[in-house]
């Protein structure tokens, strides 16, 4: 380690949805890496220490190093020529990069989707279908005396959610921290989060909907069939106790994760939970928050909603945005509909998408923007190496409670940022599309009518 170091206070960790903004980073300016991250959790420490400047070309086409300009031109040509292109990823990019990506999707008339669609997408659909009683993490810290974690495991996925916001931290009306809170964990498994919980309810896997439905009935004072214990594995008395605790707390909050969103029933699970929280507001103040995974996946939802009206799974084929998860989400577009070009931004779908979708990726031109090598960048035709957002670049990230946080970069990178690359591609796609779209505009206004009705 050299002596040429710099300390950055109040830096931001963009690893998970907590987006903790109290980091104190020590940066080795000669070696271009972070040597110490004070206040960071175990995940944050490895996030900071693992980011080093790799020796990769700024851009490559077909495995051959090319100039930045050539790669931008090739990408724009691919996206413009495609009939059904998709953009996917976005969750580890800044808000500024995400908005450029939405503009590209709009100009190229393709689909845009974030990692939400394989994560908290059902949450976004429940927002639309049921509505959300929301809050900020600051309110949770200062007021929440009943904290429920449903199908999530913060001890391993969001370690500082406990200490900084929701459990052990002391707040304005919670002077003794954890002693003043009741913590409930709902999870079939005894996870690392279990020791924190005062009450651990362990339903049978994939019976969340039945359990929430029974709780809703109990909250409303309706009769619940005793068969609920056989179905969920949870005795009726336990559910009655939980319902009473929820109705009688001062400020309750439910954090939930993919145990709920990706279980059988998906958006009906989240919708049921949101409805339960709405029901509880007849009796007390109760809120619900998804425990979001990636650093700026919340931002991806925010930017897409702000620009298109919908949080993910948006399609611009007809020139205006349409929303339909299951039809316009990345997995469906690849595996079923034969998307003919794809741009993956700061994500690695080739490592986790279903086989049929990955097979399609191998058949079509793929553009990859990533800070490091990945399975996706290995199969991509055009590969951009980017600087790391938050570590090398300014920008904005949204915390899981929809609070925007300004990033404070630690050291400079020789690679361009996502924003610079996407902005260059956007400008070129725009120019190319003026030529492509100059005919047939009058007929377009006619064709959409019945479809518009069907998609409203």
């Amino acid at each position, binding site marked *: 380690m050299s002596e040429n170091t710099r300390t950055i206070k109040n830096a931001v960790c963009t690893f998970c949805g907590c987006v903790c903004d109290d980091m104190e980073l020590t940066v080795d300016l000669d070696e271009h890496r972070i040597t110490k991250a004070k206040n960071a959790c175990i995940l944050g420490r490895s996030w900071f220490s693992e980011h080093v400047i790799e020796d990769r070309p700024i851009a490559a086409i077909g495995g051959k190093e090319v100039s930045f300009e050539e790669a931008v031109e090739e990408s724009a040509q691919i996206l413009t020529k495609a*009939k059904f292109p998709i953009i996917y990823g976005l969750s580890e990019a800044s808000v500024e990069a995400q908005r450029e990506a939405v503009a590209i999707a709009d100009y190229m008339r393709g689909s845009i989707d974030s990692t939400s669609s394989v994560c908290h997408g059902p949450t976004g659909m429940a927002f639309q279908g049921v509505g959300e009683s929301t809050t900020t993490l600051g309110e949770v810290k200062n007021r929440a005396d009943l904290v429920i974690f449903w199908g999530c495991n913060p001890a391993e996925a969001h370690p500082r959610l406990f200490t900084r916001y929701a459990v052990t931290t002391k707040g304005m009306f919670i002077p003794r921290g954890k002693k003043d809170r009741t913590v409930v964990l709902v999870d079939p498994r005894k996870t690392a989060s279990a020791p924190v919980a005062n009450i651990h309810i362990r339903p049978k896997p994939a019976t969340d909907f039945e359990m929430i439905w*029974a709780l809703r*009935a109990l909250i409303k004072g309706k009769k619940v069939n005793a068969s609920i214990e056989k179905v969920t594995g949870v005795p009726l008395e336990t559910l009655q106790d939980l319902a009473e605790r929820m109705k009688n707390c001062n400020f309750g909050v439910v954090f939930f994760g993919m145990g709920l969103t990706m279980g059988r029933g998906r958006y009906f699970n989240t919708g049921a939970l949101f409805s339960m929280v709405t029901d509880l507001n007849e009796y007390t103040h109760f809120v619900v928050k998804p425990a979001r995974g990636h650093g700026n996946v919340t931002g991806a939802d925010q930017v897409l909603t702000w620009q298109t009206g919908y949080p993910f799974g948006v399609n611009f084929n007809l020139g205006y945005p349409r929303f339909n998860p299951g039809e316009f989400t990345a997995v469906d577009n690849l595996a079923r509909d034969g998307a003919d070009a794809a741009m993956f931004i700061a994500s690695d779908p080739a490592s986790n998408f279903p086989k049929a979708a990955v097979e399609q990726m191998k058949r079509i031109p793929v553009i990859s923007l990533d800070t490091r090598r990945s399975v996706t960048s290995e199969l991509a035709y055009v590969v951009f190496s980017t600087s790391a957002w938050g570590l090398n670049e300014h920008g904005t990230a949204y915390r899981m409670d929809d609070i925007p946080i300004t990033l404070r970069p630690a050291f400079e990178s020789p690679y361009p940022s996502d924003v610079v690359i996407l902005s260059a591609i956007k400008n070129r796609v725009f120019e190319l599309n003026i030529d492509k779209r100059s005919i047939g505009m009058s007929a377009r206004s006619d064709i959409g009518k019945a479809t518009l009705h069907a998609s409203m």
Partner: protein
Amino acid sequence: MSLTLSLHTSPEVPVEADVISPDRLNNLNESALSALPVFHGNVQAKIGDFFKVQGQYNGEIRVEGDLSKVKHIGAGMTSGRLIVNGDVGAHLGAGMQGGKIIVDGNVADWAASEMTGGRIIIKGNAGHMLGSSIRGSATGITGGEIIVHGNARNEAGQAMRNGLIVIGGNSEDLTGVNMLSGTIIVLGKMGIRTGAGMKRGTILSMHDADLLSTFTYACTYHPTYLRLYLTYIKKLGFQIDDAKLSGNYERWAGDSIELNRGEILLYRN
């Protein structure tokens, strides 16, 4: 001779062809029909790029070929007959108001979503969201008949307000979820969470089902009107034996979280 559209070139990516509807193809000759616009992905194309057009519309359209990537066929149609030979893509007959669609094949998701009238007969299987609402909308179908001879997947009849859905095979989860009114008849088995959040309406199955804890057993009886319904669908080509026409059914009332005025009827003996 009726109008026939035969697929000669399979689309590489989805084609949105809501023009394939009696309302849009009426009074046009073959060349005018071939020139009608469809969207091939994000590119505007013509019907003639994919279909060979023959004949003149006389109240009936035949569409032939593997149409699994052709979406929105018959969307919003108000009258006439549309006969499809082959599997067909999403949104078949979406927002349909009248007329008849007969499919000799399987249909993808969102078939007959938000239809208000008319009849769709599907001889194969249906996908998810059969006769459901569109994302963000509170109400599914408000009228008409959807007759499926095969199976249906999740959320058949989601948020339906009126009309009849008959599924000859099995349905998967959440059949009749958030239903407001209307009738769903499943001759096979249903998945879990049937009728969750239903306010009114009837869901009938000839098999036992795992019901939510918010449904309560009322009685076992023979609903008089059921004979009328079952006789009617028997005429449509479904196998229904006499025991079911005159048999007894368990009545379960729910969903108690909502109005509790819905009913699930399960054939007993």
